[in-house]
């Protein structure tokens, strides 16, 4: 390892030690574990309640997964197709620009009114959260396909369907994966909001119950699970995105 990298890694390790150390000291000094538990008690709780955490993570993961896949299955083809039609592309860009600043969980009260508390509502909120970022990514990628390649394919006699499949979609892949990753982040955030408002199990429900039972150690353990899952999913999608960039045509 070269010296600057070694120094950076050294500071990172020192940062971790300092963070956990200060946390432990602060919790010892405050000495109110029902408000501010130390790192050891969080770790002990996480281990003791590991089965509950895994069960909650499974429920949450399933809801987000269904919502995200469902939204993507609609948004990706729509985005790819719209990107190929300039007037539609333009219209959709403005529309998503307007709608995107409204958070998906703002629709929770209506969904609760129409559908009621339950898995359907959570899945729908996740799908709403994922839909617009994925649409935006797919549409941007598709509309930015290199015109030279599109012209070349057409001049060589490719049919419109062939141009779409062989040129436009491969060119749109990197942007599409960026959208899928942002969509997953938004879906996950929406799920937490939905489960805080009301759901049967799941990590959002678990941390809210932990609050109601005055168990901050369990709440922090749940939050770390939420963060760890978000981080891993985003990491996997980031790798796919880099792969798409490498063998994409753009």
């Amino acid at each position, binding site marked *: 390892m070269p010296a600057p990298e070694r120094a950076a890694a050294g500071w990172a390790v020192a940062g971790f030690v300092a963070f956990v150390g200060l946390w432990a000291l602060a919790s010892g000094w405050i000495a109110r574990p029902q408000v501010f538990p130390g790192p050891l008690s969080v770790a002990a709780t996480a281990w003791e309640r590991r089965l509950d955490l895994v069960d909650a993570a499974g429920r949450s993961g399933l809801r987000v997964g269904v919502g995200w896949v469902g939204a993507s299955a609609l948004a990706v083809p729509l985005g790819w197709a719209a990107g190929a039609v300039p007037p539609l592309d333009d219209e959709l860009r403005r529309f998503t620009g307007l709608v995107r600043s*409204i958070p998906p969980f703002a629709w929770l009260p*209506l969904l609760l009114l129409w559908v009621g508390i339950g898995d359907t509502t959570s899945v729908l909120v996740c799908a709403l959260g994922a839909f617009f970022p994925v649409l935006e990514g797919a549409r941007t990628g598709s509309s930015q396909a290199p015109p030279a390649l599109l012209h070349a394919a057409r001049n060589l006699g490719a049919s419109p369907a062939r141009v779409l499949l062989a040129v436009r979609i491969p060119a749109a892949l990197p942007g599409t994966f960026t959208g899928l990753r942002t969509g997953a982040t938004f879906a996950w955030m929406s799920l937490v909001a939905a489960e*805080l408002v009301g759901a049967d199990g799941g990590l959002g429900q678990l941390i809210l119950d932990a609050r109601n039972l005055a168990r901050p150690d369990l709440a922090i353990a749940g939050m770390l699970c939420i963060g760890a899952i978000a981080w891993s999913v985003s990491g996997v999608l980031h790798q796919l995105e880099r792969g798409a960039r490498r063998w994409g045509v753009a």
Partner: protein
Amino acid sequence: MRLLLLLLALWEVAGRVWPPGPLVPLPSAIVLDAASLLASGELFVHVLRSAVRVALGGGVGAGVGVLVGVALAAGGPGRLFDVPVALARPIPSLAWIPLTLLWFGVGEGQQIAILALATFGVVVAGTRDAIGAVPTAWLQAAENLGASRGARLGVRAQAALPGVLASVAEGFAAAWFVLVAAEFVSATEGLGVLVLAGRDLILPARTFVGAAGLAASAGLTAWALRALRGRLTRWA
């Protein structure tokens, strides 16, 4: 815009032909509800309360975010913040709601803390990246021209400023984004309360009024911050 108007028109016409019942509002009902809230001055109060929360939470989050982002970009001891920031960033700010409720209790401080966390996550990464993206050639040029350490720091700060201000604007957008969810928990006034009235008072039109108010407020904030950024970075 045209697409939105078209969708609203279709919805209104379809609703007149096949009345959907009291749980699904028509665009005309939404406009009427908005007009009545506007006339009574209630809408103004809700927007104002939310805007104050966003200003406070966003301000605190952006301030701390810029400081920590600068520390991260400076390297050396600043890297001490690397691990805590890396641990905290993937956790959605809304997941802090239960813990902050335990810490701050139900009330204004807790809601502002959530908005500050949302802004912080965006600004800290944006500031770090904006400073990291300053071309080394500029710093070397300054050094070759005999600039002092302080002057080189000035070059760096000025070159990073547009990126930092852009991330602050993004941070305020994030605060508006999580606002309703933070207000669901305990607010008595604010756009989140309007949104929640859709279910709590069975006034579904009001959810749309709240959502539209949210989009307008976020848009206005973005516009104001863009204007400010243009003024502060006229050279860019």
